[in-house]
């Protein structure tokens, strides 16, 4: 288990905010989706995000539902690439919240995990999520990520056995990404019942921050998720709005409704 001395920037930041009683909010954006896509990052920070997930689009997003598939394709059609996106990021002023890149392992392997992590570090990225890199294959990345100052957060799923959850928690950095449902990313009508049980099982093996993702799309769902986890990841609900033409201001308003829901939930006696 990591302690405060070895914890990286993402973990320290999230722990500090969690310790104030705040519900954590990590919105996602597919990088390169529009010419001025980094404006979304500013809007997210202004809406009270605690971390921001920046998706590097991949041609074959096998764990994503239609919304993020479409967003990835749209970004690639616009000519988005890892190199261009990281260049865009390095030109940004400090947003005050850690940036966490998410992408598929093929893009990490392309120049090799070490070069990839170093490039992330140079662009000011602090964390990394690779949904098709499960813990038993992750050594190749985790070893070099630490040297480059990148914190790879691992995913845990409702189908993960308890022993394996402990293993995931041991190797995860920054936070543990709890996949709320046996499914792909995408908006859902209700928070899956598996979410509460999974979060509770993760808590038994770690005190790393636990963020719940996949399908969280409304203030009510965020509020409910907050009852179990330290915070939420919101992806498809953001990207559907972006695909429908919503600009940074509209996304800021949307995220503020989630922010408020999370804040209300933590004001309640727990």
């Amino acid at each position, binding site marked *: 288990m990591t302690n405060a001395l070895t914890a990286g920037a993402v973990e320290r930041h999230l722990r500090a905010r969690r310790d104030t009683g705040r519900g954590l909010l990590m919105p996602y954006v597919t990088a390169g989706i529009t010419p001025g896509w980094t404006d979304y990052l500013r809007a997210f920070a202004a809406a009270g995000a605690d971390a921001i997930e920046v998706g590097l689009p991949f041609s074959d997003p096998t764990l994503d539902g239609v919304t993020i598939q479409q967003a990835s394709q749209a970004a690639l059609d616009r000519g988005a690439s890892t190199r261009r996106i990281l260049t865009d990021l390095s030109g940004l002023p400090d947003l005050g919240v850690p940036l966490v890149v998410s992408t*598929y392992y093929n893009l990490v392997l392309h120049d090799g995990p070490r070069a990839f992590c170093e490039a992330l570090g140079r662009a000011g990225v602090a964390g990394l999520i690779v949904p098709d890199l*499960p813990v038993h*294959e992750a050594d190749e990345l985790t070893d070099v990520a630490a040297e480059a100052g990148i914190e790879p957060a691992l995913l845990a799923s409702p*189908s993960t056995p308890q022993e394996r959850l402990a293993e995931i928690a041991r190797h995860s950095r920054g936070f543990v990404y709890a996949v709320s449902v046996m499914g792909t990313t995408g908006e859902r009508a209700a928070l899956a019942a598996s979410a509460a049980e999974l979060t509770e099982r993760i808590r038994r093996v770690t005190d790393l921050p636990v963020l719940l993702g996949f399908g969280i799309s409304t203030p009510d769902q965020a509020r409910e998720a907050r009852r179990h986890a330290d915070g939420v990841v919101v992806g498809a609900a953001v990207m559907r709005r972006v695909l429908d033409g919503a600009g940074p201001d509209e996304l800021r308003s949307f995220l503020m409704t989630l922010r408020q829901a999370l804040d209300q939930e933590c004001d309640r006696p727990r």
Partner: protein
Amino acid sequence: MRNVLPWREPAPAAGTMGEPLTRGRFGAYGGRYAPESLVEACRQVDEAFREAWADPGFRGALARLLAVHAGRPTPLTPARRLSEALGVELYLKREDLTHTGSHKINNVLGQALLATRMGRRRLIAETGAGQHGVATATAAALLGLEATVFMGERDIERQALNVFRMRMLGAEVVPVTTGSRTLKDATSEAMRHWVGATGDSHYCIGSVVGPDPYPWLVREFQRVIGDEARAQCAAELPAGVPDHVVACVGGGSNAAGTFAGFADTPARLVGVEAEGGAGAARGRLGVLHGSRSLFLQDDDGQIVEAHSVAAGLDYPGVGPEHAHLRDLGRARYVTVTDDEAIAAAVRLARTEGILPALESAHALAWVIRAAGDGELAAGSTVLMTLSGRGDKDVSTLKELL
């Protein structure tokens, strides 16, 4: 393009084409790069397969299904007139004569039986040419399972006959409209669907691709091609073993099954890919659909769409064991063009009375070329797996010829 790697004298290393190493590795390739939600399901398939494969009862039940339902063993046919014209001795391993018309049935009967043993009630599959989909629909009907088959929209158009067959057999065919709308996208969609259905469904993958244990499991179920051919060659060939063993490679299952029977012999193994889908010959290291292997990619690491007249070869990657055999120099991977494959299909029809699948015609096209340019020495013996029959391709051929 040929001679991607120079021939190395085949030194059949002990263990080549045996069980994969720990963590499902074939040399530097393979592995289980599955989303966490599928890791437990993969583990269950692995455990069930190991048990089943060590169980004479399971083996016996499968052997019987293969015999009474699929029509095995398939014959080894000397291609007399074509051999004479080419100056080599060509033998065809006739997977086109199996029930449903391709080698895909070997794997599917194995996996369907395994699914039943695991208590699953539904099979999920992806399909390109539709042969794996038809085989899956057939096995599901036979064993009382449901079947859901994902198929790219483009393939649905060009393999309409097989779509109709699947529906006749009671399977649900789900069109995939993303990306290249071919096998790659159908595979992605089948995996996505499996994430939400692991409790009651078995993912019946159609080639030696995917997360561990699939590349190994599918090769073992296809090994029957190579084992039969080995015995048939021993009985019918003066030297007992052919000089060359040739098969087409999409994901690589008919080739892997064939090669497995000859890995420990001096036979030279040749995998023939489509010019526009040459994962083994031109791919670069990557991870897709659960395993580490060779994939066609652009300079940014995005997977490139494949293009082939043969829907079953229209895939930008290759199974991890083929990547390993390539690195070892144990097998060689070559490519042929659409035109060469079409000409080879016509030639086989006219000289031997056999209309091959366009996939299989790729293997033959290389034999014809290699016999012509001296790469196959005069008089050498060649075993070629004829992976499937050409009925499904007649509308494509009608347009092109």
